[in-house]
């Protein structure tokens, strides 16, 4: 246990261990209800938007405009402007789709699964992790839609009574995707919004301008904090968490079925569902770190998003990283153990074929670097280190999707149909453009909505505990 590195009596111990309970503190001591509220409301309700925000917004906004340009040209010319062809018909669109959806998974894991496990440290980071989920799903959901070639017929995917009486075919995993991703997007938005309503009530009551009072007044639905409302609210939150947990596990499972149900060597394996889910959580936590580290510095949130959060997220990455490593190992083992010629060739081709560099990039970024260094607590609580690590892991996970999609497709059963793949500038523009769209949406969220759930942080404070005398008291 790395936490045992903190010895009792040391200044670190005094700072982090609550003397009353002997447990680790989640947030820095000496916070009050008011200080938390002031800190978070001031970020949004200030009339002075920081210059740095405008700088980032214009920078990432231009990338989002580039996405618009790339997609417009795509709609005018068709998917031929991308590098997709035979045999690689999936290319960047599906790589990015799987990568973005995976990133979203950490948000749901933090907000739902850690809530069910009563991991209180999640409270500080759950809101912006959920926001990250939603924006990642927005970027992800776009890709299959523009990849179908005729996106204006996208509604054919839904079972609706059209006059042409053509209905979807439910035995295809691609149709399952439609339901998995649309449900995931809807439930994530609902969970996020329900969680935000009480905080929007705080904004309504603290807003100075008439316009802000109206807007926050309407979107807070008239929340007044009645304790009866709170009880139902907590019940609904728990139920939503309980529903989001199997949902998040099912979404990447269904996406892995897109591959695993196919007969292509390298795709047709039973390890895909768990290995996809673990990889999703791995990259998602990396993205949470990529967002949290600059945010906490920029908005001075060190007291609420503490070193302990970084430490814990580092540990989760370590665990999921090892599951992913097991997945890679099992793929290699089964390629040999199955004694299946094509399966073995696919593995050999991945590692030593013409695109072997992508496989070794993924091994370096996902296994070699993180799984050797994340063991050290001192490094896990070092912000620069963790930021660089998060970028490395995200790169590695992108290459994992690349390896799965591209190297399997380039060389399947028949050597006469082998091919290669080289992405065009439109592929790159679309991918970088979604990074811009994602960050732009996130910047808007940080500017206009509560990025840290105030009501949940209030519950972490010692003064929120009901003293026993008051509970037992009968009018004393």
């Amino acid at each position, binding site marked *: 246990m790395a936490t045992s590195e903190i010895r009792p009596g040391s200044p670190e111990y005094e700072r982090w261990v609550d003397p009353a309970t002997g447990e680790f503190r989640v947030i820095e001591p000496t916070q*009050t*209800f*008011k200080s938390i*509220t002031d800190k978070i409301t001031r970020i949004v309700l200030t009339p002075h938007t920081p210059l740095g925000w405008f700088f980032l917004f214009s920078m990432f906004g231009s990338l989002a405009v580039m996405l618009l340009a790339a997609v417009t040209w795509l709609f005018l010319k068709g998917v031929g402007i991308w590098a997709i062809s035979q045999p690689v018909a999936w290319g960047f669109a599906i790589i990015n789709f799987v990568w973005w959806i995976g990133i979203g998974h950490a948000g749901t894991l933090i907000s739902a699964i850690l809530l069910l496990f009563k991991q209180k440290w999640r409270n500080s980071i759950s809101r912006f992790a959920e926001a990250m989920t939603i924006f990642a799903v927005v970027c992800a959901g776009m890709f299959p839609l523009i990849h179908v070639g005729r996106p204006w017929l996208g509604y054919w995917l839904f079972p609706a009574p059209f006059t042409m*009486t053509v*209905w*979807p*075919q*439910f*035995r295809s995993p691609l149709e*399952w995707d439609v*339901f*998995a991703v649309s*449900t995931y997007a*809807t*439930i994530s938005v*609902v*969970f996020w919004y*329900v969680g935000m309503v*009480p905080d929007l*009530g*705080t904004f*309504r*009551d*603290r807003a100075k301008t008439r316009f802000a009072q109206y807007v926050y*007044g*309407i979107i807070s*639905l*008239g929340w*007044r*904090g*009645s*304790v*009866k*409302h*709170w*009880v*139902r*609210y*907590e*019940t*609904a939150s728990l*139920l*939503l968490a309980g529903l*989001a947990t199997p*949902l998040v596990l*099912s979404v990447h499972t*269904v996406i892995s079925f897109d591959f695993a149900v196919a007969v292509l060597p390298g795709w047709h394996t039973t390890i895909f569902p768990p290995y996809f889910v673990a990889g999703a959580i791995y990259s998602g936590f990396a993205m949470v770190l990529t967002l949290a580290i600059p945010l906490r510095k920029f908005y001075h949130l060190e007291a609420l998003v503490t070193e302990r959060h970084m430490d814990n997220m580092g540990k989760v990455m370590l665990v999921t990283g090892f599951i992913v490593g097991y997945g890679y190992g099992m793929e290699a083992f089964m390629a040999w153990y199955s004694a299946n010629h094509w399966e073995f060739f696919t593995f050999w081709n991945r590692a030593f074929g013409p695109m072997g560099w992508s496989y070794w990039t993924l091994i370096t970024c996902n296994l070699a670097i993180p799984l050797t260094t994340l063991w050290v607590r001192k490094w896990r609580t070092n912000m620069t280190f963790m930021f660089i690590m998060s970028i490395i892991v995200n790169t590695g996970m992108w290459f994992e999707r690349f390896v799965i999609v591209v190297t399997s497709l380039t060389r399947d059963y028949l050597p006469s149909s082998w091919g290669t793949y080289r992405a065009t500038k439109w592929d790159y523009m679309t991918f970088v453009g979604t990074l811009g769209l994602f960050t732009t949406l996130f910047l808007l969220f940080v500017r206009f909505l509560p990025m840290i759930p105030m*009501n949940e942080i*209030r*519950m972490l404070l010692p003064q*929120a505990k*009901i*003293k026993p005398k*008051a*509970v037992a*008291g*009968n*009018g*004393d």
Partner: protein
Amino acid sequence: MPPREGTYGLLAEFDDPGDLVRAARQSYQDGWRRMDCYSPYPVEEAAEAIGFDRTRDRVPLVTLIGGLMGLTAMFLLETWINTLAYPIDIAGRPLYSWPAFVVPAYEWTILWAGLSAAFCMFALNGLPSLYHPVFNAPNFRNGATVDKFFLCLEALDPKFDLIEARKYLEGFHPLSVVEVEY
């Protein structure tokens, strides 16, 4: 609907959640029924103190019914579409492929259950309601969503008398007691 005018109730403000719970429990024991507490974060003890039984709350039941409806709706829809409305023969596989139908049906179970939980919670709470008399109290919006705890004895309670009730609330030593108008 009777005209809404006059006093809605008396609002006592507390600094500490323990004081609120104690006051709420005592008032309930003394026979008050039309009352409510307001807090900036969930204080379950206060809800129990004013007689709110969470085991009889209907949100979980509605969620269950919603989920079962989603499951049934999707499974039947899939079966109808793939066997009757638009049967396609794909490599001789059976039209009624129930294992394949499980996945969308599973997703719709979650979708309908989640939407039921959220909408039912808001509906039972009577939200959205942008106007509520407690917002008229001068100190309510300063504290109820930040760091103060409120107990409101409502005028509709048969025991309510403006002067007596004010005295009663002051017995709990709140920060203030204010009259709330409609």
